[in-house]
């Protein structure tokens, strides 16, 4: 019995329920329009993330025949070769930027968010009716919002939603989907979170075994999909070393990079994601029936991802989405119907219209990127080739792109540096005791720093560097 069946007959509430039930298609249509329009508006923004610039540089470098090795072609103090795990979106991004400029990248982001919304809806619609499925998909996008920047991780989110839905189908008919193997190959060529997709497969497989829905033989057959996917990861152009990349990147990033730290639970996106997970826990605790183990496994995975790192909150929201939708469906309606072809085409049509509308919108709002000192680019490019620059970590991606003539003493690819070196860099940025020695040792003669940073004050006041330009909250300093 759904909650709507408990509404007393012949009351205003009952009439409202009856009115709504007679117009579900209309309500779902309006909701779809509103959600797609809002998602488009949220998606079309000027570039404000520090990472896309690095990916543009990598895309250009790779297209021009460049290859990373040791020593690093850009960073004189790197101690390890850089592994370009995100080569495919880097190339796509560069080609788009080359043709359409910054609005092209902004459009790609909006398109990525709309595709993600559709992919999550593909999951939620499997277990819930249209209105609930659309609402939950949109809430999941809001939960993932902090991760939805102009970066290759957008591919990971989309692939995760597709993988999740596919494994959900396997739980229904117990058939392995072998096409997940080539999909994981593509995923691994785009971004480093492919491991989560494989993990979802393993959890679902063991969950089904715990539920006694499959025997040992079927379990092994199902687990062949994640196993083969893992093998496929070793066959990308990067080679088998890609299998170790998530761990080598993580070891440095965990200590020094903000998005690898625990999420701030006062951030709205984190709150939304944890509320989604909490809702499922409460619904299950209040239900008389036990949930399947594979669903419990997915919920625990979502919880761990939601609390582990700021960068994995988006993954948690995506995994929680179908679980939330299913519980809401149970609360509000007992009859679940699969979407009609007309409904599917309507959604895709609205999304296509949104993608077209996003083109002029991106042209209007995304010409000038935010948070980077674009007006200093010309000055930076005039500095002699090979000059070493000490720069705030976040701006180094843009620096590599805008002034390829310069050599940053540390850059956003934190994994290529020795941890002790990164610690010295961080201490230098805080004007700690080692700052003067670090600046001397690295031979930096130019600095690009936040105007309120301790090092900017120390260089000016104690080493008499002078300001040669400022823009967007950054100071460009030169050694006297």
């Amino acid at each position, binding site marked *: 019995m759904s909650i709507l069946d408990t509404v007393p007959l012949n009351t205003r509430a009952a009439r409202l329920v009856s009115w709504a039930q007679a117009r579900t298609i209309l309500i779902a249509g309006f909701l779809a329009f509103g959600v797609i329009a809002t998602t488009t508006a949220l998606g079309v923004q000027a570039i404000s993330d520090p990472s896309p610039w690095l990916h543009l540089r990598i895309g250009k470098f790779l297209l021009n025949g460049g290859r990373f090795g040791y020593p690093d072609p850009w960073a004189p103090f790197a101690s390890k070769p850089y592994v370009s795990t995100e080569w495919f979106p880097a190339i796509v991004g560069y080609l788009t930027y080359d043709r359409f400029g910054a609005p092209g990248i902004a459009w790609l982001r909006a398109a990525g968010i709309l595709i993600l919304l559709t992919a999550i809806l593909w999951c939620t619609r499997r277990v819930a009716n249209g209105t609930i499925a659309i609402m939950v998909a949109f809430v999941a996008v809001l939960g993932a919002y902090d991760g939805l920047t102009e970066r290759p991780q957008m591919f990971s989110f989309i692939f995760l939603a597709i993988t999740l839905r596919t494994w959900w189908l396997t739980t229904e008919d117990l058939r392995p989907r072998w096409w997940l193997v080539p999909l994981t190959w593509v995923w691994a060529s785009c971004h480093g979170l492919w491991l989560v997709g494989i993990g979802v497969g393993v959890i679902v497989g063991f969950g089904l075994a715990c539920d006694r829905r499959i025997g040992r033989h079927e379990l092994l057959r199902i687990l062949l999909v994640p196993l083969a996917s893992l093998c496929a990861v070793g066959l990308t152009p990067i080679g088998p070393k890609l299998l170790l990349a998530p761990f080598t990147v993580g070891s440095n990033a965990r200590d020094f990079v903000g998005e690898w730290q625990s999420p701030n*639970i006062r951030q709205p996106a984190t709150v939304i994601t944890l509320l989604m997970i909490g809702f499922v826990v409460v619904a299950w605790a*209040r239900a008389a029936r036990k949930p399947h183990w594979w669903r419990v496994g997915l919920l625990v995975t979502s919880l761990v991802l939601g609390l582990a790192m700021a960068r994995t909150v988006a993954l948690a929201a995506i995994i929680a989405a179908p679980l939330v939708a299913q519980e809401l469906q149970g609360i509000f309606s007992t009859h679940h119907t699969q979407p009609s072809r007309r409904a599917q085409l309507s959604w895709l049509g609205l999304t296509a219209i949104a993608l077209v509308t996003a083109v002029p919108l991106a042209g209007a709002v995304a010409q000038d990127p935010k948070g980077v000192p674009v007006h200093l680019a010309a000055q930076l490019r005039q500095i002699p080739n090979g000059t070493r620059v000490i720069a705030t970590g976040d701006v180094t991606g843009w620096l590599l792109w805008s002034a390829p003539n310069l050599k940053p003493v540390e850059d956003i690819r934190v994994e290529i540096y020795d941890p002790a070196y990164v610690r010295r860099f961080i201490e230098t940025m805080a004007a700690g005791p080692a700052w003067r020695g670090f600046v001397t040792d690295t031979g930096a003669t130019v600095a690009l720093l936040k105007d309120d940073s*301790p090092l900017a004050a120390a260089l000016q006041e104690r080493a008499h560097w002078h300001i040669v330009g400022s823009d967007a909250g950054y100071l460009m300093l030169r050694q006297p």
Partner: protein
Amino acid sequence: MTTQRDGARVPVVVSITWAVALMYLGVRPVSDDDTWWHLKVGEYLLHGGAFSGPDPWNPFATRPFVLNQWLPEVIGFKGYEWFGLPALAWLRCVAIMLVFTGILWCTRHVADTIPALIVALAALIGTAGGLGVRPQLVSLIMLAVWVGASWRTAEDLRPRWWLIPLTWVWACSHGMWLTGIGVGAVVVAGLWLDRRVTMRAAARLMLVPLASLAVVALTPVGPRLLLTPFEVSQIATEFVFEWQPTSVRASPLAVITLVLIAGTALGWIMSPQKTPWWQLGLAITSVVSTLAMMRTIPVGAIIAAPLAASALQSLRHSAPQPPGRRSMRLWALLVLAYAVIAIPLTAAVAQQPGGVPERLRTTLDAAPAGSVVLNDHTLSGWLLWREPQLVSVLDLRTEIFSMDYVEAYIRTSEVRPGWQDFLAQTKPTYALLRSESPIRLALQEELHWVPLQTAQGFTVLRKP
């Protein structure tokens, strides 16, 4: 608190082992940054100081100082006066045992001795971040009592009126009294949602938290005490580490607490019975407390304890056997023995404080009275207590300063552009800073301050 199911000896052995573990945890030198200013407040009150009003010590304070922890401060000061630092270490040691006993009072009510002891120890470890030599310990004991009493109310639907005077004592001791009232309100609301009580009966039960709220206004501090939790948190949320959101990866204590809750939730989920709303409400309160701030992880751990113990007991597929009078007497005896044994131990290890640069005192003593000191804020309590003739630019009672002032202090400590403005405003002639800090380096390199002495990781500098 033994049961036949666990055998007669095992619970005794586990209890004694746990007590030894608590002793190991509790017998430490006094090393909490806050202890010192609490001593100062105790002394101030005993010498006729007011419960609220303009700050008596710091000329840079612009907001009134409200003494919302006066009772343990007075007790702590008297203890210090009579027996020195070991008295404070002993008070902490005994308070830890009382926190554990309070948690055990909750867990043993819903589980047999062994599961109750196991969960109580796990919860106590979850509270470890709040087990400093501070009035906060009183809050942890009181909260455990509130949780245990509310649990019993949920079972027999009888109000515990004695919680009202207890809350009065709590409100005289520490600012977390609101958490107990919150637990009471959550349980009553849950009972109403569970349809176990009518609206009228719920209103009667709600009188306990409401009356508790009312008596908070009747302490010597007056009705303004009701607003202090919000006044303190406004500034502290911005600047004080323990008021920041919990970083799960950086806090094993939060992980322990969340594991307790997650285990409970898993038990509920896999059970064919509906979980009552009042227990769900407690679990949600526990999770929110654990994740909201580092300082409220202990609150989450204590609330989680009976829930986890109940879940663990459910694995035994039987109702817990209530503790007998004999086992309760044995436990009381154990606590008494613990308190007595702790006396010589604390006297042996806690004669000297930890974490403060005692060796710099001679240099600081030589500074002229009234000298303003640019201080590392963690040392401000110690400075206030040990060197009362000096004036710190900022102390740990951040709530008595304006937001702009605290921001300016932080800007200076981080040596950000404009850092010298704060020096011009406060005119310090001495500095007591961490030797490796950027500000120590900047004062020396740029303003040519003279280092007088370095010891125990800190340096005293004098303006040239």
